């Protein structure tokens, strides 16, 4: 009898795929280029894009993350995960950001920003997030963004209506991320970005200390100068 029950239990277990929460521990760095789907901007988004001036509107000029996408896509910087039973903390070397995300369901997303830097400044352009596990994937949903730019080089915007879903998993030892932006006011179809990160041997996440990212100090030096750019 016991043997038959054991066999039945084994058969039951074998009939379902075995998933485990992904172990994202370690230090990661972007590898290769971020690939993106065709971006289908609405008229409202096109107007924002047309008004965007990279030289003055890029939040990076103030050491401020322009969006979640901008932070994930920065090359040559490290990213670390801390997976606790009730939350996930993602630490980005870029701008020394710490993203504290509780585990829960999307309905539980708070109104407070999830991201601050090590000095304690919160960044609403990174939105408010909640995370959960689905099989061997970690999913993060983020809402309540303040307006920012998903792609600062081209002025692709985000708004307070933007909802992002980040899907993270391990594949062949690499960390994979699919980042999906949904916002009917800005995009006619979801805007999807794919990333791959390689695990580093290093265990350290050094401080970035973003300093003087703007050009005000420099432009003051040439203030008396007139004429066209050479």
């Amino acid at each position: 009898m016991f043997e038959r029950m054991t066999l039945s239990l084994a058969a039951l277990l074998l009939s379902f795929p075995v998933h485990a929460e992904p172990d994202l521990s370690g230090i990661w760095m972007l590898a290769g280029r971020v690939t993106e789907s065709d971006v289908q901007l609405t008229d409202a988004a096109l107007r924002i894009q047309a008004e965007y001036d990279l030289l003055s509107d890029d939040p990076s000029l103030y050491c401020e993350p322009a969006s979640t996408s901008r932070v994930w896509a920065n090359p040559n910087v490290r990213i670390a995960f801390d997976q606790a039973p009730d939350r996930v903390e993602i630490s980005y070397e870029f701008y020394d950001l710490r993203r504290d995300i509780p585990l829960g369901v999307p309905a539980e997303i708070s109104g407070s920003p999830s991201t601050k830097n090590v000095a304690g400044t919160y960044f609403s352009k990174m939105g408010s997030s909640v995370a959960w596990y689905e099989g061997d994937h970690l999913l993060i949903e983020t809402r309540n963004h303040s307006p920012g730019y998903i792609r600062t080089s081209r002025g692709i915007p985000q708004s307070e209506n933007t909802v992002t879903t980040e899907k993270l998993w391990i594949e062949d030892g690499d960390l994979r991320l699919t980042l999906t932006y949904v916002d009917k006011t800005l995009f006619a179809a979801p805007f999807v970005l794919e990333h791959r990160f390689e695990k580093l041997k290093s265990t350290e996440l050094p401080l970035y200390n973003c300093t003087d990212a703007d050009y005000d100090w420099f432009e003051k030096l040439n203030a008396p100068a007139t004429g066209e750019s050479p």
Partner: protein
Amino acid sequence: MKTILMTLLAFVTTTSMAHHATVANFTRDIISAEGVIEQVRFQNPHASVLIKHTEDDGNEIYWLIETGARTTLERKGITLDRLKVGSTIKATGLKGRRQFTMYLQEIVFEDGTTFTPEQEAADAEDAAIRAELVAMADDFINLRMMQGFDHDMPLDEAYRWQDEMVEIMRPELGEVVGYKTGGHDPGPGFATFPPDGIRAYILSGMLRKDGDAIKVADTKVGFLEADFAFRVGSASINEAKTDLEILAGLDAIIPFAEVPDPYYDPDTRSINGTIVANMGTRMSFTGTPVPIRATPEWLERINNFTFAVIDEHDTVIQSGQMNGWYEPITVVRWIRDQIAESGKELLPGQLLSLGNVGILRQIHEGSPRGPAYQSDQFRLEYYGLTDGEPATVTINIDR
């Protein structure tokens, strides 16, 4: 005075740009500016050099010469230490969309020397790898565990570093006297060999005479390996096309057994590591050369000889046949073509060990590869190559 030179180029690579927004912040136009360094700013998100250019009329213009993030530069081994406040430089780079800015490509100092971040990075990386090789060579020579060479790079680059490794080991292990290869037989293969085969150098200091004795402590994880080798007779082999032409470039079969010592850290060993570590080649034993001729009959002999390893009691430990293992002339051709990719040619007198003929015995107890050889002699006999007594080479073990 025309201080700013602007040249439109059809193509300028931007792959070196560390910060992806950089692509948007700079055009593809190349410009130059001369001036005196006012500040060197080694910081995130942009390191930069501020220079002051004074025009003929006394008007001063500040230029910001930007480069990558401090973090990126540091990780590439680039410093800005050579850029001294007060020195005059000419900077060349990509014209910025912001007035009087550029993305640095090259700085020329007053004495004509240059600073190129990409070259600095390459030099720093090379220096780091060279230091790693020095440590690996020292570990190998002193019977310490070598760390694997954990660098992603094409095979030809790994072989370039193998050349460097051999240069580092040359004072201790002597001149290049030949090549060895492996991975051409139908056996299961090694995960740390490239799929098409691997080669390494044989150095004069590795050569041992027929019958020389080794001690178990002479190696760390060394093992006894029955091999087969040729000697190059003529440089014509480098141009040979047919098997007979290749055979004509060889003048002897060398009875050959070796004791490799691939003592790498098992957690870090890799294909590139195995190449760069010269396959852990430590000792090569050579018997009396067997002269050969470039005839179909000799090709037949070479492809069909048999062999056996015998101990000091004349007990056959293991035997085998070349037929079905690898084709010797095909492997010679592979070595020749492989070293040609590195710009090398085979030279008369060089040995070409074609690799294991299927018989290996561990020397050390507890090896994961199998039990330790208990006999005191590892005598390799080749049958069918000579008309009389078999060709032979012997390794004695002094316990």
